[in-house]
């Protein structure tokens, strides 16, 4: 748990975070600020990414969120540990989240996993590569089954993956490039391969 890793001793929101916090807090009526706990944990994670290159939520930051929202710290710990999108330990520069739920698995997520392992040298789920570039996590359904299999890198979905595309993507990330997210097979959104087959005529509403 929390005490196994080295934790920073200090955390303060920076100006960019403060601006975001203000917009989040404005959404909730007075006395209901605790509702903003998930958005604020995202803010923390983004700030950590900016300042340290690793998107995670240290314990002092959870305490800062608790103090800002006037809630007991344990209530923030509960939320932060419950949701898998919050990392309670440091991660690599890129967070590779491989979906292995049935549709992705049927469409070849094992291949994607193997390619990630080969390219990064990571042995087990949750590990960070030796160069600190990648952390690989197994996630449950990310809700993009029609374009399975999915490899989510940080907040971006890379869809229709296979081994070659995975290796190419990771190589590009290593070079500092950020290929556009979406279907790697060139599909438009979730349309069939080769282009749309329906809704080709102008509709009545026009």
């Amino acid at each position, binding site marked *: *748990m*929390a*005490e196994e890793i080295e934790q920073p001793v200090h955390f303060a929101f920076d100006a960019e975070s403060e601006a975001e916090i203000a917009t989040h807090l404005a959404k909730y009526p007075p006395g209901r600020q605790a509702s903003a706990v998930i958005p604020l944990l995202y803010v923390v994670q983004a700030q950590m990414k900016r300042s340290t290159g690793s998107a995670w939520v240290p*314990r002092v930051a959870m305490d800062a969120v*608790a103090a800002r929202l*006037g*809630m*007991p*710290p*344990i*209530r923030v*710990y*509960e939320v932060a*540990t*419950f949701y898998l999108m919050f990392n309670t330990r440091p991660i690599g520069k890129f967070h590779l989240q491989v979906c292995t739920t049935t549709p992705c698995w049927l469409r070849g997520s094992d291949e994607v996993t193997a390619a990630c392992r080969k390219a990064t040298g990571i042995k087990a789920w949750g590990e960070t590569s030796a160069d600190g570039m990648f952390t690989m996590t197994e996630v449950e359904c990310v809700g993009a089954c029609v374009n399975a299999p999915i490899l989510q890198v940080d907040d971006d979905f890379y869809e229709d993956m296979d081994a070659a595309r995975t290796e190419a993507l990771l190589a590009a990330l290593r070079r500092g490039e950020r290929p556009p997210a979406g279907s790697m097979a060139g599909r438009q959104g979730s349309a069939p391969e080769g282009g749309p087959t329906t809704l080709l005529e102008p509709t009545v509403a026009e």
Partner: protein
Amino acid sequence: MPKVTVDGITVEVPAGSNVLQACELAGKEIPRFCYHERLSVAGNCRMCLVEIEKAPPKPISSCSYPVADGMVVHTDSPMVRAARRGVMEFLLINHPLDCPICDQGGECDLQDQAVGYGMDHTRYGENKRAVKDKYLGPLVKTVMTRCIHCTRCIRFAAEVAGTPELGATARGESMEVGTYIEHALTSELSGNLIDICPVGALTSKPYAFVARPWELRKTDSIDVLDATGANIRIDARGPEVLRILPRVNDDVNEEWLGDKSRFAIDGLRRKRLDSCWVRRDGKLHRASWAEAFDAIAARIDGVHGDRIGAVAGDLCDAESMLALRDLMATLGSQNLDCRQDGAALDASRRDFYLFNTTIAGIEEADAILLVGTNPRHEAPLINARIRKRWLATGAHMPILGIGPEVPLTYDVRWLGNTPRLLNDLGDAAGLLRDAKRPMLVLGQGALRRPDGAAILAAAWRVATDHGMLTGDWHGFNVLHTAAARVGGMDLGFLPGPRGKPLAGMLDGGVEVLWLLGADEIAPERIGRNTFVIYQGHHGDRGASRADVILPGAAYTEKNGTYVNTEGRVQRGFFATYPPGQAREDWKILRAFSDRIGRRLPYDTIEALRARLEQINPVFARLDASPRFGISDPAGPAGDPAAVGDAAFALPIESYYQTDPISRASPTMAECTTTYRPVAAVAAE
């Protein structure tokens, strides 16, 4: 009120009840783990499943399903039986089979319900999960693998105790109950977690591996370590008190108990006075009762009554105080005092020194002014009641404080720390005036000071000026810290017309001083040539200064009457014998009176109690604390204008060590070390 039929029995239940409560009204037992009457409903253990006609055709958790008129409930249908068996099988998947080494064994809800509602085998063949134990402080032991995630402890800590430090972190298979960041619970009510935990995950650390419940002799009694008068059950085996548990009394402690009252009992075995001692040539020597009585008789022979005094301590029962008072009367002494701390209590009217609103009455208050008090340490159960009321008002009830700012379990607006505020509350006065039932709590910290009488009068004037005293509401409250205090006031253990108060007896004001369990007086304040008789149960401050020591009985070792801070007369019963030569205190006094030829007129405790009732009829009304309004608003003697401007100091430094018993307790000593300084936690 809706009518509900449970297994063919039709009952009327209050609107807003849940199905589980309706089933209980119909006399049907519903198994449950997460549901607890005094906590919010979680509905996560699924053990209380029932079948309801014309509801969704599936088992329904009765604790979280509201009743409706005409509802038909089945608690013993094939579907319900199968559902309970299934739930129990799931609960036992990860529960270890370690009952033989589990302290909960014999009083375990899971054990009982597994036998009553479960299957005789499991179909689960995989590995069970194991969870790391948590450190929750010196009182609560954890074996987290046994936890079934009912979340009662989490809800208790957040709701009743007001110290939201426990939570469920991570999820699913990895979910764990704990504090996440390891630290000792900061609540004075943490022992109650042990009671509400339905399994052996949270058990008592000091009581670990000590006894099985069926070995214990159970005696009803009254707690004396604070002035709340919590109802307790003393569990003893042979000559030893092994643990203390709360009894249910909705008017006093509900079903909770403060940690000091629960865990200080190892102090009952240590530093005990088990024989008489007589000081000869500056040294105490063991003596027989006859020798000790002879020594006292020889010393008081010929001493004028005015030169003899008696002080009653904080843990005394009313019977022994009356016996000592009567003994002093036969000696011609009026020098009596039961106020060891010199608090300026006014005995001229009973409501000048009582918690008149009553503890249950707090739940009707809609504004509170705290004066010179930290209820969290002085009476944790009353503090819990204030928090309960505060939560019931949606955390909106104004609670104002005059005194040092201490972390309480509700929001307090601190006005400052000077008694002068009593004469000018500023804009806070409006909050009290706007309230329908405002109350004021005056702590001992406000009274045990030179201007105590003025503060008492000023506080009374605040009460009259702000609508706290009406025909049906008495909002003036004195919060006591000593269990014996109100009883002593009620039976008149106070200086007579020619008598000296405590201050007059110290520094050589009397030649002979009889201390009945009085341990809070600094020994150096007693005159060098004063002959001190200490009668009590612990070798504490009083005994260290004594010339003759008479070993008495602790509260677990005698039948005694106690009056709590709200004036409720309650009786505790004898649970174990006092050690060695020690005897019940009133018997010691009765025997001594015989030795000096001034025999007290009672031979049995019944006769003594009859005399008690004759002195003050309130002693005849057991366990009653009638609520009353006020007809005569005249206040206590004292000039409200004479209040000083010295800041209030609180009477209790460490909650865990306040009296001879808790000072002798290693568990309480460990708590004092662990919990210093007390961490502040935001109220939820």
